[in-house]
């Protein structure tokens, strides 16, 4: 799991000033406050508005930034067509889990931060006039880890798609299963996969869209079970995290290891799709594979 770095104060980074080569560039920075941002990939100084208008993709190097679920939904669906479902489902701390921070407090903090109950938004929607059930994960909420709520909503989305004969689209981005719910989280992997077995038996279509990062128990369950699997460029996709692997095998990881293009090369992703084409591609695939 990664924490977003705090935004530097304007004093250390003059607006519209020359590139400040005296201080190291903000490496991990995604979308900071203020008018300007530095691309974490090519380090270009970018006008934030321009990035937003470019679907949160760097206009210089095409780096795809992580985006909020609301933005993702806006980008994919016909305007105003998203009808959210099961929004009241919220997490509970059944285990009484306490690490450095009690899970109970984490939940409250994350809910306050995001204004949402948990890390997944799901509902009916239309994509270029094709009716779908859409679920989108949001990494702002505990790295979009899958606990009972995420697992339940994914399962309900799949069941709804099965019942109403709508294609199911899930846009994944997740640090994996949520440790704070332990084996309850683990069980969500089996639950969501079982629901997909039923959708498959019913002849339904499941399109899995993998975005940065999709790892752990999410990859090892519904995310890898798409009839069709799309991925955004350079998205990190894997079972184990790169650090864990590097520690285990004690050797340098190959270039581009666990990136979307690598998975396509190895045969586990159908298509790497640029964000600007995602909506069109999904619609086209539905025309070929949907009922």
């Amino acid at each position: 799991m990664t924490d977003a770095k705090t935004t530097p104060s304007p004093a250390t980074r003059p607006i519209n000033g020359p590139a400040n080569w005296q201080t190291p560039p903000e490496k991990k920075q995604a979308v900071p406050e203020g008018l300007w941002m530095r691309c974490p990939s090519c380090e270009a100084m970018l006008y934030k508005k321009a990035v937003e208008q470019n679907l949160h993709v760097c206009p210089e190097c095409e780096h795809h930034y992580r985006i909020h679920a609301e933005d993702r939904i806006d980008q994919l669906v016909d305007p105003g067509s998203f009808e959210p479902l099961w929004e009241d489902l919220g997490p509970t701390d059944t285990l009484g889990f306490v690490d450095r921070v009690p899970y109970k407090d984490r939940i409250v903090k994350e809910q306050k931060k995001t204004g949402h109950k948990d890390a997944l938004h799901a509902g009916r929607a239309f994509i270029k006039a094709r009716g779908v059930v859409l679920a989108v994960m949001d990494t702002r909420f505990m790295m979009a880890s899958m606990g009972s709520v995420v697992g339940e909503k994914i399962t309900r989305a799949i069941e709804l798609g099965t019942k109403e004969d709508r294609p199911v689209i899930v846009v994944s981005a997740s640090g994996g299963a949520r440790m704070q719910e332990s084996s309850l989280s683990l069980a969500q992997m089996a639950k969501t996969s079982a629901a997909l077995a039923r959708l498959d038996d019913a002849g339904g279509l499941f399109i899995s869209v993998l975005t940065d990062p999709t790892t752990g128990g999410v990859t090892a369950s519904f995310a890898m079970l798409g009839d069709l699997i799309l991925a955004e460029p350079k998205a990190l996709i894997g079972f184990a995290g790169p650090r864990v692997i590097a520690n285990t095998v004690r050797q340098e990881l190959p270039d581009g290891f666990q990136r979307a293009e690598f998975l396509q090369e190895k045969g586990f992703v159908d298509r790497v799709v640029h964000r600007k084409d995602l909506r069109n591609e999904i619609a086209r695939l539905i025309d070929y594979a949907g009922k």
Partner: protein
Amino acid sequence: MTQLNEYTGNFELEFERPLTALERQIDELEAQSDPNRSATGLDPNVDLGSEIRKLRQSHTAMLKKIYKGLAPGNTVKVARHPGRPQAMDYIHAFVKDFTELHGDRQFGDDHAIRCGFGRIGPHKVLVVGHHKGKDTADKIKANFGCAHPEGYRKALRCMKLAEKFGLPVVTLVDTPGAYPGIGAEERGQAEAIAVNLREMARLKTPIVSVVIGEGGSGGALGIGVADKLAMLEYAWFSVISPEGCAAILWKQATPQTNADAAEALKLTARDNLKLGTIDDIIDEPLGGAHRRPSMMADRLEQYLVQALRDLKRFKIENLVNKRYNRLRSIGEMSE
């Protein structure tokens, strides 16, 4: 059928240290009372027998006390005891005519997962089990029970055979987790596990799974989707190993944070039963399966025979529905 031997190595669990002194004392007295082993000869005035009996009683009492209040972190240590019976031990103990099947027909034969036909009591079954390895060479060959994608694909290939030929499936889960390596990722570790979850959920034959030692995360679940999921009393089952959890949430894995993580993860059999993630607990002999492996094998065999008998009564469509509802119902949330 082979009789399983008790552990004779010198590995010692830290929390059992008080017992070791007693065991040494008992051993010494036994040596003295045995005319063949006694160095000084027998003293007819000393009743060593009653002395030994007394020491044995206090040994048992102490063992009971230690295992009654076993901390989750220590349960994990028992689950990893080098003398703990492994899947192949149980297979040798009670699976008749075990006929091993190798390979996934795609890439290779993973020694971390073993599959084969055999009979358990009156039931012809397919047995699938993680294999951790017995000696060093065997352990390395089996990657210490951490399977690669080809292991999960072999398991699924064999389970599909079982479905085709009407054999129930028994899986014995014992892994710290699926292998995190370059080759494993290149060959689709996540995809292999995911496909197993989906296919086991709809496999048209009864499935019984038992976590016999370690039930680590997706690597365990990859052969653990079942109609009935049980755990041995001192096995652990969780979304991540305590060490992995400590490294992430406590920022470092030390003996203390590992123990804290084990506690927080609610990974014991009793906790899992409470959470509803497993259906049954199979009691272990006093002091853990490694002390009485044959007794443990008998209990596991009895459990499997009964579970298979129960599951075979269902019409297969009903059983698969029931399995779905079992998986579907797990999770805690507020609405």
